[in-house]
């Protein structure tokens, strides 16, 4: 299973609609970094509205993808984290402190624009 990555101007948009098993998550990490490299994208929004579970492994992959993209010069914003998922992450002790988040895709794009203008 490959997660589709859409390009919009200098942004990449991803909406995760499938069950995130470990292989899919790692494949996505690789695909996104390659796509940033190919397109010179400056911002990325990963929408998690449809994701109903984030365990410590997926959280690590997502956290890593944010740091790796940052190293490549692209800002990542995670959007649409479900309330149940947010509460579960806190119970797990995972705070995703350095990861920019926003309520939804639209807010995510606004946040990216602000961060990139700074």
């Amino acid at each position: 299973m490959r997660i589709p990555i859409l390009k919009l101007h200098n942004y990449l948009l991803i909406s995760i609609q499938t069950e995130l098993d470990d292989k899919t998550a790692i494949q996505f990490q690789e695909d996104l970094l390659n796509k940033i490299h190919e397109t010179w994208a400056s911002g990325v929004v990963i929408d998690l509205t449809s994701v109903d579970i984030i365990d410590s492994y997926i959280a690590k992959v997502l956290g890593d993808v944010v740091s790796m993209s940052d190293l490549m010069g692209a800002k990542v914003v995670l959007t649409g984290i479900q309330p149940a998922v947010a509460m579960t992450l806190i119970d797990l002790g995972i705070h995703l402190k350095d990861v920019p988040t926003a309520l939804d895709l639209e807010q995510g794009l606004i946040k990216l624009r602000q961060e990139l203008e700074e």
Partner: protein
Amino acid sequence: MMDIQFQSFIPIKKEWDIVAARQQGRDMSKQIGFGSVDQARIATAISELARNIYLYAEQGKICFEILDDMEHKGIKIIAKDDGPGIPDVGKVMEDGYTTSGGLGAGLPGIKRLMDYFDIVSEEGKGTEVTVQKWLR
């Protein structure tokens, strides 16, 4: 007396079994009547347990039981393997302790996600983790 309504298990051998186990846990907890937050907690705990089996013991199983003693309902999950076991159980219950470059949030996290947590592990013999969550 604990009246066991339903028992089942999912063998953990390949990576995809982690997904199968947590989906089974979510379906069962929904059926028991747990709300979406507790469903997520239970599914996440199972995901952590199943991944630990897959990563550290190679294979094992996740057993499910619906608990119903007239007064309350709940779910019991037992993760069992015949892997290498854990030499220092106290150590692995510390937040951030990992031998695999993971987040080390698994076991201490599972304890916080569930109402009951017990781990029995013997070096060279295997590990058994039992967790329960009650419907409130």
